[in-house]
């Protein structure tokens, strides 16, 4: 038994194995020592190997001339530009495919998730089959598949498929019509007016509902206004905007918007693969809202669409947002598979850089830093959004 000692006097700290504090201190020192030794060992090996193989270190190569061409770029780029600019082009290409992918995959995935819960037997079965097939086949394989379809199966530009006017699919990629001309300002102006009008209408409708109980069909009005105002603006401006259609000239198309085979295949693969996961996230989120909520909302006489919008979705979003965040992060990270089909994303550009300069460590560090930055920004934003929609308790 321990001796009775006055409680005011703190027990003298003795170095004993039986003291948990001491023990944990020793463990931590040991573990840090081992990890530190490992890091020192690797770093010293690396320095030695670099010296032996005569590889220079440092990020000085970023200012040297790259000397390789990049297939597509958002900003101007020529082989005479520096490695730094080439890598920046790669980062922008990654961001471009990720942002478009995230937006479309969210829309398609939400649609599929809702379709899977539909009361319509056929619709729910078709959505279910899509989800099961797409998420059980590796993304890389899907990319190879789409790329092979576009480059091998699709006809040349002369026999291009023309599913709707102005859209051409050939082995040179996808051609879409674009808007040309200076009427864009008028349309944007119309859009701005429409948004202001919708906000005001929403306010007025809410007030009227509170006063009289009559529901204002904001959705229909908004849909109408958002079409009418930009079109009105376009007409007011004298309809200066022309639709530029891609045209076949000689052996290739001119004009219009081009999606290269690489970009189209990567985008298709990412969207199709990720939307299957998004569908599952949305489905589980909606199902997580208990049946009683549906029944109670139906009991107070809300139609199904309003039940979904006013009662179920706000609750489901809380369940949906965290897994959705990780799907967005996955899509961004999966875009690195672009290297396999030759889309010049950051991994592919850095890989070329690394082969030319031999500076593997710096290259890999740049890739990791870029992805960590993007991942952290997405998760910071989604965490902020998650907090905003979180349950506010008393």
């Amino acid at each position, binding site marked *: 038994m321990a001796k009775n000692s006055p409680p005011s006097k703190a027990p003298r700290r003795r170095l004993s194995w039986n003291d948990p504090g001491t023990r*944990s201190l020793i*463990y*931590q020192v040991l*573990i*840090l020592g081992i*990890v530190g030794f490992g890091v020192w060992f*690797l770093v010293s*090996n*690396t320095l*030695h*190997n*670099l010296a*032996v193989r005569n590889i220079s270190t440092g990020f000085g190569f970023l200012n040297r001339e790259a000397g390789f061409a990049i297939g597509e770029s958002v900003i101007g780029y020529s082989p005479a530009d520096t490695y730094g600019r080439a890598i920046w082009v790669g980062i922008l290409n990654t961001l471009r495919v990720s942002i478009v992918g995230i937006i479309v995959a969210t829309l398609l995935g939400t649609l599929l998730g809702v379709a899977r819960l*539909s*009361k*319509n*037997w*056929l*619709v729910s079965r*078709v959505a279910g089959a899509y989800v*099961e*097939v797409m*998420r*059980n*086949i*590796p*993304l*890389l*394989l*899907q990319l*190879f*598949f789409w790329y*092979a*379809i576009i480059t*091998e*199966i699709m006809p040349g530009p002369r026999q291009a498929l023309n599913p709707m006017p102005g859209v051409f699919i050939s082995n040179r990629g996808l051609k879409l019509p674009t808007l040309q001309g200076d009427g864009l300002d008028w349309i944007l102006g119309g859009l701005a007016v429409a948004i202001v009008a919708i906000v005001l209408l929403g306010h007025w409708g809410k007030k009227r509902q509170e006063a009289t109980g009559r529901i204002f069909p904001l959705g229909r009005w908004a849909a109408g206004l958002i079409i009418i105002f930009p079109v009105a603006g376009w007409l007011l401006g004298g309809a200066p905007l022309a639709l530029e259609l891609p045209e076949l000239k000689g052996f290739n198309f001119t004009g219009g918007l081009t999606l290269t085979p690489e970009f189209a295949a990567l985008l298709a693969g990412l969207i199709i693969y990720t939307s299957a996961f998004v569908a599952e996230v949305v489905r589980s989120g909606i199902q997580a809202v208990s*049946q009683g909520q549906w029944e109670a909302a139906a009991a107070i006489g809300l139609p199904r669409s309003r039940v979904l919008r006013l009662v179920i979705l706000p609750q489901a979003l809380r369940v949906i947002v965290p897994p959705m965040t990780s799907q967005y992060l996955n899509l961004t*990270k*999966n875009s*690195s*598979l672009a*290297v*396999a089909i030759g889309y010049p994303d950051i*991994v592919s550009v850095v*890989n070329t850089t*690394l082969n030319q300069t031999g500076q*593997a*460590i710096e290259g*890999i560090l740049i*890739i*990791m830093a870029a*992805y*960590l930055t993007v*991942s*952290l920004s997405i998760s910071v934003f989604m965490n902020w959004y998650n907090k905003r929609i979180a349950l506010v308790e008393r």
Partner: protein
Amino acid sequence: MARISTAPDGPPSSHVGAWAWMRASLFSSPLNTLLTVLVLWLLLMAVPALFEWLFIRADFNASNAQECRESGGACWAFIVEKHRLILFGVYPYDEQWRPLLATIILIGVIVCSCMRRFWKPYLGLIWLAALTAVAILMWGGVFGLSHVENDRWGGLPLTLILATFGIAFAFPLGLLLALGRRSDMPAVKALCVVYIELIRGVPLISLLFMSSVMLPLFLPEGFSIDKLLRAQIAIILFAAAYIAETVRGGLQSIPRGQYEGAESLGLSYWQQMRKIILPQALKVVIPPLVGIFISLFKDTSLVVIIGIFDLTQAAKTAVADAAWRGFSTEAYLFIAFIYFIFCFSISRYSQSLERQLQTGYQR
């Protein structure tokens, strides 16, 4: 007095039968009818054409590519011709019964581990025996089997080996990382957090690149690890971080009382974890863990990028044969089917397990 029949009436005739079912589940509202018609139209456009291409006009026994192209359907003769290359890679042709046997053993132990009857301590021994048998079969060099270098391994067995060894090593590592992240020791916790977040923040490709170009620089001179092992290490390190986060979720779901109760029994930390906490925590996270195993299986296809001859790479090689140009769709569909069979059966298994373990109230 009128007799009142006590036999229960059936449901009204408008609520039974095929017609009622169709009215309820296909044509319940104008929107639903529209959707049904739309989907039916899409299916009618796609399915017969696909079926015709896949089976009716397909050529199963053409002897060369020209003959196959003339049929106008899928060229399954190409798969028949190349199936040994796709399934077993460039393993010596006469010895290909060995990877076949190894594949069967691997699938066998995976199926065994899925059955609750085998959830006993001796399962570990079964795994050890099976993995040893696989190593002996693949490498050879003993029992009169000729030695085969591992750069000649390929195809399905290689994919399965990468996945099973990946799971077998990543799981304990992930467990340790999860425990480390919940540890009271700040240094251990910080190390684990940094590791997990760093790995989860970067794509697997960058780790594979790192293993193929940076690892040789890390090691002392004259000491090298072969390419396959480096890729395997990258996969293990990557999967461990994800497993750690999942297991951490399970650890957090265990009420505090369990930890305190275990401590008050006087159990040591490892005894607490082994006997009280982990059995409960792991049970909770079985479904998400299976999800991670599925994605690990799919992710093994990424080793293509550093030039390892797995199933996907084998298909690409078969496609590149000049004598059989232009049948990549068939080859990719074939291996997609293989991947699908594996992943789909694992996910179905996970769902049934979820139902078995679920004790909550369900409508």
